[in-house]
């Protein structure tokens, strides 16, 4: 799994940090998502998928062509 984020879209709602704190953080100055691990290990994939689903701004892109890997 490879993750990409779109900072421009992020509305700093923090769902990603709530469900996958190992993978996402937020910048102190403006709350925008920070990607801690662009290729997280298998056991975190489910959480990342949930983060992408909950993100209200579609700022987290995960899976796609990588979803099979």
């Amino acid at each position: 799994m490879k993750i990409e984020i779109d900072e421009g879209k992020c509305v700093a709602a923090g769902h990603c940090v709530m469900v996958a704190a190992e993978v996402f953080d937020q910048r102190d100055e403006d709350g925008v998502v920070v990607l801690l691990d662009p290729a997280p290990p298998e056991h975190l994939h489910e959480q990342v998928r949930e983060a992408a689903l909950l993100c209200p701004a579609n700022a987290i892109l995960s899976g796609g062509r990588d979803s099979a890997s």
Partner: protein
Amino acid sequence: MDEPKVLPTAARATGCPYAPAAELYEMQKSEELPRIRIPNPMIGEFEAVALTRYSDIRSALNDDRLQMGFVFDPDAPRTMLNQPGNLLNYNGAEHSRLRRMLTAAFTVKRIRALQPMVEEVVAERLDALAAEGPGVDLVTEFSTPIPTQVICHLLGVPYADRADFQRRAKVGLDINTSREKQIENLAELDAYMAELVAAHRREPGDNMLGILVRDHGPELTDDELVGIGNMLLIAGHETTASMLSAGTALLLQHPEQLAVVRDDPSAIDGAIEELLRFCSPATTMPRQAAADLQVRDQVIKKGERVMTSILVANRDPDIEAPDLDTLDVRRPPQPHITFGYGAHQCLGQQLARLELRVALPALFNRFPTLAVGVDHDEIDYRTTALVFGVNRLPVTW
């Protein structure tokens, strides 16, 4: 007296105030998007396209072509819907600019750091309940003061001013209040907030207004700061107050679910999400089309207003989860849209979660025999206001 006005997209079932009215489920089933009349004291009655399906609303709220529809107009009288600095009055780049200045104060980390303060506020309110004794109204002694004190703390509002503050917020959210009364009420709130802003300009406090003045002082006008303060106040307290009282009333009618909230700390986060989904305090969210757009195969024309029903969308049978009409606090996390969706999704949602997560278990632990002091069907629910809630909730133990 006139019949109280009810937004059709907020209509509740006759038997259960938590459930959407049958008409809303009808609209949801219908392939054709209904156009309905919406009463509004500010702009008069208007027509809007009703969106009731979960997936329609999610994509609509995330579509740039659907805008807030009440853009700030400096030449029109100040109302709740016409405020500089209020995020709900901005779209696109202007909205992001303002929102970005505010988000630093609302990161998960910053909100978690507020936990001790929230715990202190809750402990104080529990003592106040105990001191009043059985028969006390939970709404006035617990559900309303908690978020009010928290937001006052964050804005730096002195304790002595809270009652007035609370009253003005309540008036501002009542769709049955006349336009004149709304304008007058907001003028009072503005005047108060302007003094607060001036104080922070002189000496920025250690709270949200202080942070804003310190980090973004020159970029924000005093007017914008006043609007931001009003927005944080209104958004920050009425909805959370409603969740505390409507959530408590609901759990008291479902003792086996209440036991989970009280006794299982590992289940609390999921339980709060389920309560948020089930109560949907901000029942509807309005938008306006800035350009033609399509929902399924139907066109919403540029200029048309749109009214989303969060209430019925959160129970859409199309969502792949069993029986969303049943409260089940152990349900696996269910993506709801209680806080909206898209660029305008609630800025204060993590704060709201924190307050609920601290307050509800503490209440049920302190008063294990808590019960509603009237018959359940006599609970005075607030079903006509923009925010669902309970007017009075006498409790005993």
